[in-house]
């Protein structure tokens, strides 16, 4: 992914998350179904997940033309009703004349979503999540040592994710976050600078202010795109205790516990992150297999933790890398947040993350 393209695609990606949320809100269902005589239909098979490459290419090629039309609020990729990849055009209030039914052979879907201003990151106005995070803006610039839960990013892309935790290995300390926050979805070289805040949150946006480095990329677990399975989207950046603290900003859970806990269905959890600040939720499912859409392709993750928000979304774009901990005074680490849908958040089981990287949580 080139950082230049990344920069222009960012607001669109945020928009798409909301768009799917709006559409799905009409059909939102949590419905255990009673057994019936109807048998399962598993005749189809083989495919591991939709291939979004053609849709992504069509979106990129036509993005400028489509986005300049009146009433268009966003463009992205999604799935049509029959499950095939499509270009999604988000509109302020319903139909717009003159839009093509297909772009380079890829079907086009219109989604009336309303304008997106409310979900774009705004300085000084964090939150919008389910917990209310107080007055701290986690996307801002913090005095060193910076707290957990704040905006970070790789020097070579205009993006922002979340500083999840400080971890230790052999007497050294590291920043824990996602591969796709610290290591540019496998594209980074070890030694690249990690900045606080991430360049998406700097002013002017995408600039690199002097002194913003808080670490250097030191290790990442490669994400397998396409076929194959993953368990973690995780990376480390080498840092020091004078640059990175081990407690959240005010209003958060403070220091995470050194001792982890495995997720169980129904477990109450919380997190502090760059976009929705500190929110509370509940584990909805465990041992989940999930297909996740990245910029560069789709990846399948197994043994994942699924979290639902208590009030509103548990996470949104920019919260990637947040540490999910138990919602009690112990704050035991449970999962590393890395993906989400409308009201659904996905985390890697924290023990798998820590063992893959050979580290332990630097906490209480």
């Amino acid at each position, binding site marked *: 992914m080139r950082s230049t393209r990344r920069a222009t695609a960012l607001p669109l990606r945020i928009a798409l998350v909301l768009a799917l949320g709006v*559409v799905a809100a009409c059909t939102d*269902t949590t419905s255990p179904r009673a057994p019936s005589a109807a048998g399962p239909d598993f005749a*189809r098979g083989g495919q591991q997940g939709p291939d979004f490459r053609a849709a992504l290419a069509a979106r990129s090629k036509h993005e400028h033309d489509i986005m300049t039309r009146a009433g268009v609020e966003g463009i992205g990729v999604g799935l049509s009703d029959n499950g095939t990849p499509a270009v999604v055009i988000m509109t302020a209030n319903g139909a717009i004349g003159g839009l093509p039914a297909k772009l380079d052979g890829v079907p086009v879907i219109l989604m009336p979503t309303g304008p997106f201003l409310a979900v774009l990151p705004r300085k000084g106005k964090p939150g919008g999540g389910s917990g209310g995070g107080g007055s701290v803006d986690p996307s801002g610039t913090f005095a060193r040592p910076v707290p957990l839960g704040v905006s970070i990013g790789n020097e070579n892309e205009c993006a922002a994710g979340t500083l999840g935790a400080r971890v230790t290995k052999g007497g050294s300390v590291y920043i824990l976050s996602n591969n796709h926050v610290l290591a540019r979805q496998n594209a980074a070289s070890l030694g690249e600078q990690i900045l606080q805040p991430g360049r998406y949150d700097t002013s002017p946006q995408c600039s690199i202010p002097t002194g913003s480095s808080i670490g250097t990329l030191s290790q990442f677990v490669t994400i397998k795109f396409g076929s194959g399975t993953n368990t973690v989207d995780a990376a480390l950046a080498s840092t020091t205790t004078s640059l990175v603290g081990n407690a959240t900003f005010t209003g958060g859970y403070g220091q995470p516990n050194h001792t982890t806990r495995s997720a169980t269905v129904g477990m109450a959890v919380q997190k502090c992150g760059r976009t929705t600040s500190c929110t509370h939720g509940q584990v909805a499912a465990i041992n989940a297999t999930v297909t996740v859409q990245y910029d560069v392709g789709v990846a399948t993750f197994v043994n994942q933790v699924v979290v639902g928000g208590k009030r509103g979304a548990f996470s949104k774009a920019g919260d990637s890398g947040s540490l999910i901990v138990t919602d009690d005074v112990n704050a035991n680490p449970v999962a590393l947040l890395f993906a*989400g*849908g409308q009201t659904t958040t996905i985390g890697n089981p924290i023990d798998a993350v820590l063992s893959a990287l050979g580290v332990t949580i630097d906490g209480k």
Partner: protein
Amino acid sequence: MPSISDVLKRHTDSLMAIPGVVGVGQGEHNGHPTVYVMVVRLTDSLRHALPDSLEGYAVQIVTSGTIQAQPD
């Protein structure tokens, strides 16, 4: 009755192969384990494609939307 994890092992791949299904895991409803199925949108074709239960465990369908990595 087989364990929920055995049931997931046997059926996850075929559930994930259904277009529109983006996740399969272990959920819970009224204290009972369920097969938790995440879908992009709950369409009629998905309603028909998904079973009501698997080996005694209710199938719980949740509209999750497409799951995306969450950087800004």
